[in-house]
């Protein structure tokens, strides 16, 4: 009788232990599911913030000191990008890697049919300036700017300012 009682108690303890393990597992699974859900929301928020940053930055980037023409080409101009300055910026770009928190910045001459990437060597006979890398990835936000530079003419004019219409695009990546 006593033996039977002890066996019965052991069985109950075992049952209880199994139930507890099952309950703990259930909690853990629910927790994992919830965390996954919460983190996917965070990734979406981070991407949204990247997009917001790009959209707000594009309207003003051309006026930032590293790009703007200032008074180099006559009167002060807004949305004017200094071609020579940008080419020089490309030479120091490693220091600017996290500066604007975007994946790339592209300035493309609108009226040009070619796709020649600009470097310090081939400037100004090129069509596209890519600030960080020559490859582009992700989504873009763009704005039209004037791309100005100094030119020299062997005829009577001498040194003159040349401005072309260009499209400035900021690229950002989706947070993975």
């Amino acid at each position, binding site marked *: 009788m006593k033996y039977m009682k002890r066996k019965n*108690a052991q069985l*109950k*303890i075992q049952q*209880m232990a199994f139930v*507890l393990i099952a*309950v*703990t597992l259930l*909690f853990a699974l629910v*927790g994992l599911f919830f965390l996954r859900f*919460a983190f996917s929301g*965070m990734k979406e*928020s981070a991407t949204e*913030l990247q997009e*917001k*940053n790009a959209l*707000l*930055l594009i*309207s*003003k*980037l051309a*006026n*930032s*000191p*590293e790009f*703007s023409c*200032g*008074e*180099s080409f006559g009167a*002060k101009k*807004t949305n004017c990008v*200094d071609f*020579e*300055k940008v*080419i*020089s*910026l490309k*030479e*120091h770009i490693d*220091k*600017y890697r*996290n*500066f*604007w*928190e975007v994946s790339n910045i592209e300035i493309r001459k609108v009226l040009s049919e070619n796709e020649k990437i600009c470097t*310090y060597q081939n*400037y*100004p006979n090129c069509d596209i300036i890519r600030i960080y890398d020559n490859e582009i990835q992700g989504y873009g936000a763009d704005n039209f700017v004037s791309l100005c530079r*100094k*030119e*020299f003419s062997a005829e009577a004019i001498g*040194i003159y300012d040349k401005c072309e219409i260009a499209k400035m695009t900021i690229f950002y990546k989706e947070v993975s």
Partner: protein
Amino acid sequence: MEKGYLQISFAWLFAFLAGAFIIFLAIYASKAFIQNSDEVQDTKTSKEIGILLNPLETGFETGKTTSINMPSETRIQNRCDIFGTFGKQLISTSKKSFGKWTKTDRLVDFENKYIFSEDIVEGEKFYIFSKPFYFPFKVSDLIYLTSSKERYCFKDTPDRIENEIKSLNQKNIILNNCSETDIKVCFSLNINGKCDINVDYNSKIVKKNNKIMHFEYDSLMYAAVFSSPEIYECQLKRLMKRTEQLALIYNDKAALISYKVGCNSNLNLLALKNLANNLESSANLNSVNLIVEDIQEKNKVANCKLW
């Protein structure tokens, strides 16, 4: 007489202990989750504030003002770090929830922003105005952050500053007619000594919290007025770091123009770069400014202006 024992079976005891453990875990997890959600929200808010400052980049305007309204009482912590190529602007926010400030250790950093404010700014509405800083080329737009809870009263201001403040029309900056609670900013030697901040345009110094901050140009004067001395000194060093990099870019641009179109500018940009790099504190700003003024004059009359 038989003694009475409280008889609890092992199964019950086990269930109690395990139940208590599960309840403890659940409470702990919920608390951690709420804390984490608050921290995520605060970090997101900090990032959003930084992003919202992007449109404050000025074209050629003298100053721009805007305001940010928070859904609840918020604390913005302003920190500055000088390490790295450009240093970092760090901000964190915490909001009041059930009478307590949420705790956040996560700081959001920006390399391209310069916010001048007290170490902690508190309120529901924040005013932000920006002004470009030229040294001698445009270095950046300086952002001045204040709370609507604090009202600054400018006394005996020079006409130029008075006109600028009038045109800014920022609700928490007033001219003269100060009340007791206002933060008084005096531009003349105040005999009564009732000024919280003293600006001396002759010596180009701002005295605040018994500390002296040196400035050049109006944009830095405002920066010294609205920020704590520690933030001011740190942000100034960051501005010098950017000046240094821009001087290198302009130096390369000068070489490029000289090579491609044969137009020489002969500006001593490398000297500026070195002086900016060696700036110890605002007390040395004047010595850097001497070369800045020289470069500025030469650029003005150059055939090919660099900026």
